[in-house]
């Protein structure tokens, strides 16, 4: 038997493709269901949220400008990497979330399948969401969905036993990425460790830095800053049911940010989730041969 002394991981934030500590220097303790210390997670501040929005904005042009085929492959690649590190996630869900080994495995499997399912939509959602329009005149007229831009998300915050550790996070991030948005997500406060491990997957996959930004800490503290941020185009309150989410929606209304209200549990994978984070653009051009 080895006598190797284990090296615990330092869990940090994931912003702009890098892993900074919170600028505030704050951390909070992550414990097992039995209350045993697991790790110190970074406790993101409003300035971390601000930095994350800046990073996300910078990444929009590149990510949304990539071909849909390319985005689909990049999302599929996340599933590949997740598959390769499934033992690590199962471990984290078991120890950090208190899941049984079987339940943890099923959750990781489901999370992988979510990536695969959404990856396949990247070059198809446009075909079912957009359409040509038969206008009464000599004009070419077409309506197509485009990414909204920067999406802020509150990941599901329910008990880890219900899937908020990994599956919930993946279920809100993936649909926003499909069309080319970049995201700032507030991970489950109680089960943040899989989120940072997912960030490591992102960092080693082909997702460009800044496309996915992951904050750990208190949603109640950070969400209002993201909701009222003028450079956030859409807000997914999926996991904000326990917060004063109507106030968040009101704050978002100041700049007409699109708001998706809270859901109970883990959001089901749905085309509508992709569509919600898009804007329909209609282009007109005359048609003539002389």
């Amino acid at each position: 038997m080895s006598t190797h002394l284990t090296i615990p991981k330092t869990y940090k934030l994931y912003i702009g493709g890098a892993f900074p500590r919170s600028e505030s220097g704050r951390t909070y303790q992550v414990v097992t269901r039995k209350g045993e210390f697991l790790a110190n997670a970074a406790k993101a501040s409003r300035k971390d949220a601000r930095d994350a929005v800046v990073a996300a904005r910078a990444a929009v042009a590149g990510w949304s400008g990539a071909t849909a085929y390319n985005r689909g492959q990049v999302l599929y690649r996340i599933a590949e990497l997740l598959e390769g590190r499934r033992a690590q996630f199962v471990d984290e869900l078991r120890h950090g979330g208190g899941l049984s080994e079987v339940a943890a495995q099923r959750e990781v499997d489901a999370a992988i399948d979510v990536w695969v399912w959404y990856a396949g939509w990247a070059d198809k959602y446009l075909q079912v969401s957009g359409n040509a329009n038969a206008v009464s005149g000599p004009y070419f007229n077409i309506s197509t969905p485009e990414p909204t831009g920067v999406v802020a998300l509150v990941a599901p915050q329910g008990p880890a036993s219900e899937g908020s550790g990994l599956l919930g996070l993946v279920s809100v991030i993936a649909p926003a990425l499909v069309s080319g948005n970049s995201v700032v997500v507030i991970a489950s406060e109680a089960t943040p460790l899989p989120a940072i491990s997912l960030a490591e997957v992102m960092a080693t996959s082909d997702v460009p830095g800044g496309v996915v930004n992951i904050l750990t800490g208190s949603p109640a503290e950070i969400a209002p800053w993201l909701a009222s941020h003028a450079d956030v185009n859409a807000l997914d309150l999926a996991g904000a049911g326990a917060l004063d989410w109507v106030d968040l929606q009101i704050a978002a209304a100041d700049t007409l940010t699109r708001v998706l209200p809270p859901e109970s549990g883990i959001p089901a994978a749905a085309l509508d989730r992709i569509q919600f984070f898009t804007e329909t653009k209609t282009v007109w051009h005359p048609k003539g041969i002389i």
Partner: protein
Amino acid sequence: MSFLEYAPAPESKSILHLKKKYGLFINGEFVDGHGTPFTTISPADESPIAGIAYANEADVDTAVAAARRAYEKTWSRMSGADRGKYLFRIARLVQERARELSVAESLDNGKPIKESRDVDVPLVAAWFFYYAGWADKLDHAGYGPAPRALGVAAQVIPWNFPLLMLAWKIAPALAAGNTVVLKPAETTPLSALIFAEILQQADLPAGVVNIITGAGDTGAALVNHPDVNKVAFTGSTAVGRAIAKSTAGTGKKITLELGGKAANIVFDDAPMDQAIEGIVNGIFFNQGHVCCAGSRLLVQENVHDEVIDRLKQRLSTLRMGDPLDKNTDIGAINSKAQLDRIRALSKVGEEEGAQRWSADCEIPAKGFWFAPTIFTNVETSHRIAREEIFGPVLSVLTFRTPAEAIAKANNTPYGLSAGIWSDKGSRILGVADRLKAGVVWANTFNRFDPASPFGGYKESGYGREGGRHGLGAYLDTGWHPSLTAAATPLSDALEAGSAKKPRRASVAKKGASK
């Protein structure tokens, strides 16, 4: 004599049979309002047209109750095919009374008769025709197998296209199976009230459409009424923002069509004569009272002087005057308040150092008028380059490269529309891709069609009107839990299995209780 001073060619008002005063149209009949009635005037000469009832909160209650009753008892039980037939009837009646509606619109709004006659009213009929056909085909609209109506729709519309905005709101609402309470703008209620008579002629069941007149407080009471399920508003971003806040957490489905500050981008290879027409149509159509107006002209610097020269020559042929004259190009500003705002912002433009040029128009002694005006030497930081003026005032800026044009075009909190003028196909498509605007007109401008979705990005609002997308705004579409068919059902993956639970109802209730 000068030929160009065409002899007056006024459209006859004799076709109008106006009442001295109009009540509220609730439950299929005109009833008195309980607020203090007001008078709607012609902005062209400030003469009174008719007395208009003012709906107070109690009247709003009555109207919403009538709509709810009609929804529960009649409209939601009617087949889509029959709903469609009512819409077809309305479309035909609008066509039959087109001339009368055009005269009423120009009289009350101040817009030139050639626009109400050739644009507004034909589009109104087209809108009802288009959505009539959807009423029995909702399950083919791409919103799932059995999309359902939302219930009662509260609709508040602006004064710039009074009847057209009514059609944009009512046609899809009814096609989708909703009933309606609509409030026209305070300064332009007339055509909506004539439309109410059309609904009577169409024998539309009582309460399916209710039209209540009044001012801002009437509209606020309507959109905030607890028994409405859908709110659709077209108007200023400030009011839209207030609606977004007051309806937060209520579960009401919201469509907002708000302001804009559209860039109209002219590249040096543009088909120049058509571009000039497009610029004119972009900002001087309907006196610039258009949310999607091309109010920021971005001209490539190497053709700036030529474009401005040509533009001035073209503007000097525009004819301002009597809205009912068939040769009038530019009508009256809709209200004193709007005129004051246009004047104030134009003054700011001069103070900021932009150079003002106004067409040499004779301003009538009475009424509200503003000559077509262009500001050159406008910088991106000027207020007239950022704020919506909503009048016949064009701000001209320059750019050097396509990238700069795109950056300047997108440098605004709005995102409703944009224009591109170029002969180069790949550039048009490339630039169109990068513009953050819901409608992009390339080598044309200000075209509208019921089949074509319209609506903005960012602070220009939520949702789209027109087309299949506009139908979705009035349907309870629900999510489609497609993953169950595609892969391992999520619920199986989890012991607690919450993924399949219907998500909205409980959450909405929670919000509403706040």
